């Protein structure tokens, strides 16, 4: 931290909040609020004279409230930059600090918050994690029994700069504990609070146990656990060392801590799973190894940065396996536990990676994006005509659409990733996607269904999953019906209802609506938009009396070639089960229904011309007897 502060190209803005982030990759406009410290940074030399003079004492948050601090304070002794700060909520305005500061004249009570706007190229978010407060878990008695402490309190107790100068004591009587229990998974792996595993607490418990054992070899330490997880290099060896040192590991999650009200001794009753018996042990001190949870203001940060959150509240990465450092918004990167609980080596690795990802942006004059971006026909957008709409803005997983009532919607091209969710959702066909325009996709449909459409299975595949699945089915030589006709779009969200109506109008036998599994979507929430639409369509077709099996929704990953082949074969079987004349009659009966829904199709720019062209080309090809 000190190194970073000395580096001329790094500016540390301490005690500063990010209020607003606007713009896009390479061109962010960030509004910063530098809070008033009431001490001038250019004059303060960190001598602590003001803190020594200050008569006010308040609980020290950094010391987990185990020690007091003054109203004039630095959060911790290693603070960078080392500039004092006056807590106005606690200050009594006695001005003793001003006196103590003397000739330096660093204290300035007239200071105010400073709001600045800065041009930023790339943002790395490293806001870390918060701690689960075990008070609601009454069974462990935290807050009720003085000798039940949290991991962070233990951390301050055995820190040589902490409240007790590194002496671990029992809060009830200040004696040194001889028997200590550490309980793991307090609030984590617990569906009542946080269902996920906090990743590093097992190692953290072992580290703390070994540290305490080194300080006092006579201390009897037990660790209660459900499972010990030591997955990285050297971790299992560390676990071994702890057992060698005589630390007891008890498999079994304690149900209850009871306390002797006179001596404040604690009793833990738990089942020793390996013995299959319930045992009760007495302890002087119990440390609850609480869960890592998102920062309390993570939701707020998420809306400031326009970055989605994963279940559990952590910031969501672009892709859990392939792009774990990038946020879905280009130019914003994550480092460390704000993206999910991780230990120090993993956080350092992610931090370095984020820095190098960010420097790619800072060192380039131009930034390439996928060419399949969305574009609005402003003359067709109803918002420009004064109607309230905003459907495209809600569909966009990236917040790339600027919608204000009265002005036609606008796509911020640098933010658009080209999923086509807005295109599929727009009820007025006012948005199109380059390289996947309605005209282009409709032309493909028309070609594919030119001959004997009632025998064809038209498969809409998403670029990332089901298209890959179909590919794999081919390279793996899984046999599937030759009547399948595949059609690629970027995401299931692009599979516009109009395209499907048009295919049925042309007499398609069956249609497969396929995409990624919900958690695998390449475009964060694109699949959800697509799945909702598919469910709507399914319901409608059932109401119109379409034979079952003619419209099918399937989520197929790129690894599921066998599933793709099976689904197509099942659809072929379902199609074969319908007698031919019945199918033809059904197609004829539904045709006017579809036409009713497609009255405005030809108004879409380019569609009419494209259709004329396609009919001409198809006719030409058929004359040349090229198989279509």
């Amino acid at each position, binding site marked *: 931290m000190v190194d970073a502060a000395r580096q001329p190209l790094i500016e540390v803005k301490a005690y500063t909040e990010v209020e607003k982030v606007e713009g896009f990759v390479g061109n962010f406009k960030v509004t910063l609020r530098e809070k008033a410290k009431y001490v001038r940074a250019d004059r303060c030399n960190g001598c602590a004279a003001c803190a020594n003079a200050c008569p006010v004492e308040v609980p020290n948050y950094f010391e987990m409230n185990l020690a007091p601090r003054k109203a004039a304070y630095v959060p911790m002794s290693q603070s960078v930059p080392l500039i004092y700060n006056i807590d106005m909520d606690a200050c009594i305005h006695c001005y003793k600090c001003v006196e103590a500061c003397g000739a330096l004249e660093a204290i300035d009570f007239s200071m105010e918050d400073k709001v600045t706007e800065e041009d930023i190229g790339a943002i790395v978010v490293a806001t870390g994690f918060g701690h689960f407060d075990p008070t609601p878990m009454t069974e462990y008695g935290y807050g009720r029994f003085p000798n039940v402490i949290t991991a962070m309190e233990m951390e301050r107790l055995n820190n040589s700069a902490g409240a007790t100068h590194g002496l671990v004591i029992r809060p009830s009587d200040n004696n040194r504990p001889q028997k200590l229990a550490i309980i793991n998974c307090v609030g984590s792996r617990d569906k009542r609070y946080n269902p996920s595993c906090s990743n590093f607490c097992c190692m953290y418990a072992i580290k703390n146990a070994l540290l305490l054992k080194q300080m006092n070899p006579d201390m009897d330490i037990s660790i209660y656990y459900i499972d010990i997880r030591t997955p990285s290099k050297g971790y299992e060896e560390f676990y071994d060392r702890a057992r060698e040192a005589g630390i007891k590991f008890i498999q079994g999650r304690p149900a209850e*801590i*009871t306390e*002797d009200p006179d001596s404040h001794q604690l009793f833990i009753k738990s089942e020793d799973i390996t013995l299959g018996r319930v045992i009760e042990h007495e302890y002087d001190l119990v440390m609850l190894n609480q869960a890592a949870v998102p920062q309390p203001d993570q939701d707020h940060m998420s809306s400031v940065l326009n970055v989605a959150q994963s279940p559990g509240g952590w910031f969501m990465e672009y892709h859990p396996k392939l792009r774990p450092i990038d946020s879905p918004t280009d130019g914003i990167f994550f480092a460390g536990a704000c993206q999910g609980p991780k230990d120090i080596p993993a956080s350092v690795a992610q931090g370095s990676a984020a820095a190098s990802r960010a420097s790619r942006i800072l060192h380039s004059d131009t930034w390439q994006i996928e060419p399949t971006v969305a574009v609005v026909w402003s003359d067709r957008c109803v918002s420009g005509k004064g109607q309230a709409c905003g459907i495209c803005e809600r569909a966009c997983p990236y917040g790339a659409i600027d919608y204000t009532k009265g002005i036609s919607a606008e796509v911020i091209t640098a933010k658009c990733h080209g999923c086509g969710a807005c295109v599929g959702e727009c009820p007025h066909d006012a948005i199109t996607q380059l390289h996947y325009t309605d005209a282009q996709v409709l032309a493909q449909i028309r070609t594919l269904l030119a001959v004997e459409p009632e025998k064809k299975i038209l498969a809409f595949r998403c670029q990332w999953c089901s298209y890959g699945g179909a590919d794999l089915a081919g390279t793996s030589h899984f046999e599937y019906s030759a009547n399948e006709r595949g059609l690629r779009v970027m995401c299931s969200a692009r599979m516009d209802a109009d395209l499907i109506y048009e295919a049925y109008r042309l007499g398609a036998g069956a249609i497969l609506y396929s995409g990624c599994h919900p958690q695998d979507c390449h475009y964060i929430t694109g699949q959800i938009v697509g799945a909702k639409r598919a469910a709507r369509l399914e319901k409608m077709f059932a109401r119109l009396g379409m034979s079952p099996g003619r419209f099918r929704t399937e989520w197929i990953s790129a690894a599921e070639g066998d599933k793709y082949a099976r689904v197509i074969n099942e659809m072929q079987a379902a199609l074969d089960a319908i007698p031919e004349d019945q199918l033809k009659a059904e197609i004829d009966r539904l045709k006017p229904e579809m036409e009713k829904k497609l009255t405005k199709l030809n108004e879409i720019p380019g569609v009419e011309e494209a259709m004329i062209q396609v009919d001409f080309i198809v006719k030409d090809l058929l004359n040349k007897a090229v198989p279509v």
Partner: protein
Amino acid sequence: MSLKPKIALFQCQWCLYSPTDQEWVDSQLPENIHLIKTPCTGRINPLYVLNAVQGGADGVMISGCLPEQCHFKTGNMAARRQLEEFNDFLDYIGYEKSRMRFVWLDLQDRGIIQKRLAQFEKDLEALGQASNLVTRVKVAEGGQNA
């Protein structure tokens, strides 16, 4: 009062989570306190209380589990409904209401039963000996004298 008050302690057999407390109640109760363990406080027949009162007990203590923690779902609530009503009746005919006390023990209450008993003993000492209803008549089921 020179003699310690006589207390009949009705204890639900589930209500003490800590084994040390249970052991104390089972084997180290002072002589003036008599323990009757029941499967649930709901199982305490008002008849038992009546017998204790007529036999000269200065106080009756009923210890059970907290509401929601009853081993038999609603037994403790049923007991309170039944015995509070009976207590009101006893009060009316001359056995002071404060001579019967309910104690609901939380799982985490270790060493609380001793304190509650000591407090009850002190309160009873202040009240003095119970004499109004001491008829020394045994009452059996169905209202017959045994």
